[in-house]
């Protein structure tokens, strides 16, 4: 059996403002059908959204754990307001489930107790990872823009320290966060008066250039890539570099199907060209990209050289 069969598939936290009902349905299906090993829950982007779905959190955790999934709670990427500081402190105080920290405020609250480092934490290099490991980090998710050669070095160092290493292999790339809500701005509102208009865009609000080229997606205070990152063809390389966890970000497509394709490639039961063609079909209408991984502009789709 391929070593890749040991690699874990994870489902990242939902970045968008999906309704409580949509979330319940989504996670029920993930629990029952998706071949993912670990699931990250929690509001990472906008603290105003959390009250809509946090009441369901205990039931969702129970449902996923009953299905054999490991659950991890993620903290906010941006911490500024009182409620954001409190939300971060509340999660940092928890002993179970595991937690993933996305802001230095969370690191401060957590102290030396074990935690995971999230993708917004800017763990770009071996020195930073070593520092974080010394403070209790057990697992690190690398920044989305890190190229393959740096991923290899960072992963080698992290593994030598006993850390798990994760990177996003599917979904829109997180490109920026701001204090300003761009969803509210598009509708002539402010963040305090947003009326949760972001709920209208379960896969982000598309921005096009004025000559009509799709380029970015707005998700509240976050800006994302228009393209979905797709590193399915690079999976074998990534696993060979020592990465232990591959993260799929929830998009408004058949995520059970997406997870199944990645699992099949990891298990060696489906050839990459066939799996990637099926993935493209599942994501019809959205460009796929792998530029960041190859050290190129993120939106690019770079063909892998055929194996010799």
């Amino acid at each position, binding site marked *: 059996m391929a070593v890749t069969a040991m690699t874990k598939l994870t489902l990242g936290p939902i970045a968008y403002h999906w309704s409580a009902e949509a979330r319940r349905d989504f996670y029920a299906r993930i629990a029952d059908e998706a071949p993912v090993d670990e699931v990250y829950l929690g509001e990472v982007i906008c603290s105003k959204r959390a009250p809509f779905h946090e009441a369901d959190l205990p039931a969702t955790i129970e449902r996923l754990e009953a299905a054999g999934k490991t659950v991890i709670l993620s903290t906010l990427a*941006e*911490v*500024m307001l009182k409620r954001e*500081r409190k939300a*971060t402190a509340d999660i940092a105080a928890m002993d179970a489930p595991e937690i993933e920290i996305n802001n*230095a*405020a*969370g690191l*401060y609250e957590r102290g030396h107790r074990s935690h995971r480092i999230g993708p*917004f934490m*800017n763990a*770009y*290099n*071996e*020195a*930073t*990872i*070593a*520092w*974080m490991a010394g403070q209790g980090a057990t697992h690190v998710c690398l*920044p989305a*823009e*890190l190229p393959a*050669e*740096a991923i*290899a070095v*960072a992963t080698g*160092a992290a593994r030598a320290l006993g850390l798990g290493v994760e990177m996003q292999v599917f979904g829109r*790339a*997180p*490109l*920026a*966060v*701001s*204090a*300003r809500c*761009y969803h509210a*701005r*598009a*509708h002539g509102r*402010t*963040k*305090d008066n947003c009326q949760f208009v972001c709920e209208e865009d379960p896969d982000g*609000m598309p*921005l*096009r*250039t*004025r*000559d009509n080229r799709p*380029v*970015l997606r*707005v998700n509240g205070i976050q*800006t994302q*890539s228009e393209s979905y990152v797709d590193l399915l063809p690079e999976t074998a390389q990534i696993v060979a570099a020592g990465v232990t966890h591959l993260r799929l970000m929830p998009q408004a497509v058949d995520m059970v199907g997406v997870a199944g394709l990645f699992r099949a490639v990891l298990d060696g039961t489906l050839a990459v060209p066939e799996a990637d063609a099926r993935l493209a079909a599942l994501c019809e209408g959205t460009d796929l990209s792998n*530029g*960041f991984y190859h050290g190129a*502009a*993120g*939106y*690019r789709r770079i063909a892998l050289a055929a194996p010799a």
Partner: protein
Amino acid sequence: MSLAELICPAGTPAALRTAVDAGADAVYCGFQDATNARNFPGLNFTPDELAASVAYAHAKGAKVLLALNTYPPAGKVDLWRQAADTGARLGVDAFIVADMGVADYIARTHPAVRLHLSVQAAASSPEAIRYYCENFGVRRVVLPRILTIPEIRQIRAEIPCEIETFIFGNHGLMVEGRCSLTNYLTGQSTNMDGVCSPASDVDYARHADGSMSSQLAGFTIDCFGPDEKAGYPTICKGRYTAPHRPEGYYAFEEPVSLNLSRLLPELIDAGVHAFKIEGRQRSKSYVRGVVRAFRKAVDDIRAGREANMADLVALTEGQKQTQGAFETKKWR
């Protein structure tokens, strides 16, 4: 009352001397490589130039702050360490850092040199700031440009270090140190390479009807009518269309520059220790004008006199100005 130090940009040795002569309390600068967030062609310092510049500044009573405020990608950390070693050897007064690995190295290797936390670290809460103070001995935080004055006052009460805020210049919209927009379109990273909307990828296309479009790496960032002045294609200041905005709009922010001159007294009262002027890419004459005007304004305020900011308004004439997030939460 705080000291209200004036921290001024030095993109070149000549700009450094100009800023010092115009009354800067401190200047900030970087080396000619990816270790700082203004890694632009023709800017920044060789080690020899920095040595001479430190001597010049110190002779006139000004401090030199060295920006090492980018994030080294794995495998390239040595470049940042060497830059820190060089800076310490040349006698800089502080390092401005963002990456935890870089901060940890300096704290262990050069404990006598002050550490300032760059805006690129995006520390926007008392807890985040305390994390850097307690672990790396950070003495000053440069606050993200996203906080209101009451919020700054609150943070001041809860942290053990000094506060520096931007008061003038380019107005970044995204949380600094958390933005990969440039890398998404150009393949060059703001965090790892120190570039933002690089000039090498900029193009202006003239159309048959006299209109003009500004492009970055082939993406149209904005369009201008025959009578409009074409702006630089910075991604977060471009015009785009959205389903509810088919006419095209500034999705993130209009191309404005930050000018907090009118808020200076309030910022001083809120406990801000140092005011930062953006613009390492700017000309000597720009630096001279801005630094002189702010020097006079700060001195007037500290002496209890009415400050006249007319000179500063003139500097940005023809451009839109904003007080950004500092004045009101409605900005968000």
